C-alpha cells in the first residue's frame, strides 16, 4: 500500500478501524481531540460506534462495559483525562478485560499545559489507578510507529486480557508524516465466550458469565492477584520491545530515550558521529515491560563511562534506567517538561559534558 500523509491523531483513529476496532468512546481534550473528530466522521462510514461521553470518568466505564461484552474498543485522551480514566482502568485490569487506551501526553501536573510532554511515565507504568495492576505500555516515536502499535495493541490486549496503554507525546499527535497502513496486522478477534458478558444466547450457553473485580474472600483475592501477576511476568518474557541505535561502536555515553525525544537524540547522535564522537542509544518501545537487559548490557560495554536518561519529564524514567544499570555506571538525567522539546544541540551539549567530566 502507498504511503499517505497523515496527522498523527487521525492516523491513530484509522489504525484502530483497520485493526478491527469499530467501537470508540471519548471526551475532547487537547492535544488529541482530532482523534475524536476523525472518528465522529469515520465511524458512521464503517458502521462503527462513536460516542462522546460526558466526562473521561464515564468514558472509562463505557469502555469497560463494551470491553466486558467482548468487543474491541478504544479511547484516546490526554494526561488530565487519563487521570480521570484511571479509576476505570484499575477496574478493567481487575476484571481482566482487553481494551486499548491512547494517551497523547501534555505537560502537568494539574492542568499543566497543552504542549508535548512525557510526564505520565509513572502514571502509565507504575500505577495511575489503585491496586496491584500493570498495563502493557508502548511508546511510539512517530506517526508510522503509533499506527503499528495501535494495530498491535488489540491482539495484545486480548492475549493478556489486560488494558494496553499507548503513550505518545503531543508532538506525535499533532505532526504530519507519511504513513503506510500494514494490512497484515489485522488479527481476527479471539473467542471470548469463556468470560465475556455477551449474552448466554450469543454463545449458546446455559451458564452465565460475570465480569467483576470484587473478591471479598481474602484468599480468593490473593489468588486473583497472583493470576494477574503471572500475566505481567509473561509480558516481561514475551513483549519487551526496544531499538538499539548506534551501539556497535565504542561509545562513551549511552543515551536512554523514547518517543519524540529519542528522535531528537538520534539527530544529535548522527551529528556527533560526523565529528567522530560515538554515542549509543537504547530506545524502549515498551515502557512496561521495560527493556532492562538491553539497557544493562549496553551500559556494561567497556567503553561506556556514563548513562543518561533524556526525556520530557523531570526524570521519571531514571529509576528504571538505574534499576537496569545496577550501579555499573553513573546514571544522570536531562530533560525539559514545559512543552519545549530539547534540541539536538542541547542533547549534544549534555553528552559532551559527560564525556569531558
Amino acid at each position, binding site marked *: 500500500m502507498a504511503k499517505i500523509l497523515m496527522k498523527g491523531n487521525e492516523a491513530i483513529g484509522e489504525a484502530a478501524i483497520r485493526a478491527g476496532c469499530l467501537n470508540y468512546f471519548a471526551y475532547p481534550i487537547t492535544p488529541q481531540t482530532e482523534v475524536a473528530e476523525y472518528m465522529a466522521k469515520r465511524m458512521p462510514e464503517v458502521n462503527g460506534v462513536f460516542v462522546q461521553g*460526558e466526562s473521561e470518568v*464515564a468514558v472509562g466505564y463505557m469502555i469497560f462495559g463494551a470491553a466486558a461484552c467482548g468487543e474491541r474498543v478504544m479511547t484516546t485522551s490526554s494526561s488530565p483525562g487519563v487521570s480521570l480514566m484511571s479509576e476505570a482502568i484499575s477496574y478493567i485490569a481487575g476484571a481482566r478485560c482487553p481494551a486499548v487506551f491512547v494517551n497523547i501526553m501534555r505537560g502537568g501536573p494539574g492542568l499543566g499545559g497543552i504542549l508535548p510532554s512525557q510526564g505520565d511515565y509513572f502514571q502509565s507504568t507504575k500505577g495511575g489507578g489503585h491496586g496491584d495492576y500493570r498495563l502493557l505500555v508502548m511508546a511510539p516515536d512517530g506517526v508510522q510507529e503509533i499506527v503499528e502499535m495501535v494495530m498491535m495493541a488489540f491482539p495484545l490486549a486480548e492475549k493478556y486480557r489486560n488494558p494496553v496503554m499507548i503513550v505518545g507525546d503531543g508532538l506525535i499527535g499533532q505532526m504530519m508524516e507519511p504513513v503506510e497502513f500494514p494490512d497484515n496486522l489485522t488479527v481476527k478477534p479471539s473467542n471470548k465466550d469463556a468470560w465475556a458478558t455477551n*449474552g448466554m444466547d450469543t454463545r449458546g450457553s446455559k451458564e452465565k458469565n*460475570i465480569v*467483576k473485580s470484587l473478591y471479598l474472600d481474602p484468599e480468593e483475592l490473593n489468588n486473583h492477584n497472583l493470576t494477574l501477576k503471572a500475566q505481567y511476568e509473561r509480558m516481561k518474557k514475551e513483549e519487551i520491545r526496544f531499538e538499539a541505535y548506534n551501539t556497535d561502536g565504542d561509545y562513551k555515553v549511552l543515551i536512554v530515550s523514547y518517543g519524540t525525544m529519542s528522535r531528537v537524540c538520534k539527530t544529535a547522535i548522527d551529528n556527533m558521529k560526523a565529528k567522530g564522537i560515538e554515542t549509543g542509544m537504547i530506545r524502549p518501545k515498551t515502557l512496561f515491560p521495560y527493556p532492562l537487559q538491553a539497557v544493562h548490557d549496553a551500559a556494561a560495554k567497556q567503553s561506556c563511562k556514563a548513562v543518561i536518561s533524556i526525556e520530557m519529564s523531570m526524570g521519571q524514567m531514571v529509576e528504571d534506567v538505574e534499576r537496569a544499570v545496577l550501579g555499573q555506571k553513573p546514571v544522570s538525567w536531562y530533560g525539559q517538561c514545559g512543552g519545549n522539546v530539547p534540541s539536538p544541540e542541547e542533547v549534544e551539549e549534555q553528552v559532551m559534558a559527560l564525556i569531558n567530566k
Partner: protein
Amino acid sequence: MGKTFSKPEALSDAYTHYCPGCTHGIAHRLVAEVIDELGIRGRTVGIAPVGCAVLAYNYFTCDFQEAAHGRAPAMATGIKRVRPDLIAFTYQGDGDLASIGMGEIVHAANRGEKFTTIFINNAVYGMTGGQMAPTTMPGQRTTTSPMGRDVTTTGMPIKMCELLSTLETPGYIERQTLLNPKYIKKAKKAIKRAFEYQIAGKCYSFVELVSICPTNWGKTPLESLKWAEESLLPYYKLGEFKTPEEE
C-alpha cells in the same frame, strides 16, 4: 396438582446476604419474573452497583457486570452501543445513583440510552452502614447526620424521577414502592413496561422503587413500612412521570 408458585428461572438458588425485612429481595424477584415473562434471560446483562446490591450477580442467572460506585449507567451505555441486541439493566441504590453517579445517570438518560434502570431508594446508604444519602429526609437521623438531616447545609432530598423528567429527551420514568402487595403489583407492571420499552428500542427507562432499610433506620420491618408510608410516600409521590408516547 402441579406447582402454582415457584422461584423465577432468572433467580439463582443462592441465599442472599440481605438483612431481615429488606425489600431488595422483592425487587430482585420482580425483575427476575419480568425477565422470565419476556423470555430475555439469554440476552440480558445486568450491571450491579456498589452498595447493598453489589453481589446481585450472584442472585440472578443472566450475565452480569460489576460496576464501580455510580458508574453503572456508563457501563450500560457501553454495552448497548456495541451490542444493541442485548438487554441491559442497571440496579442501583440512592447513594450510588443520586450521589456519586449523578453525572452518569443524567447523561445516560439524556442521551436516551436504550437500557433500563431499577433505582432502589431507601433514603440511606446501606452497605457502608447508614450514612446520609441525597434522598435522606429532612430531620432523618443517620450516622453522618446524627442530629437529623439539616437541610440548611445539606439541601433538600433529591427527587430523581422529577429531576430526570425535566429532560427533553423521550423516556419512561415511573416511581412505585414495595411497601405492600397492592403497590408491589404496580411496581412489577412498571418494571415490565420499562423492559418492554427497551426491547422495542424505544427509549431509556427508569423505575424508582421506594424501599425500606430496617437495619440502618433502626426500626423493625413493620415500623419501617409504617414510617416509609407516612414519611417517604408524601414526598416521593408514586406514579408515572413520563412516557415516550407523550412526546
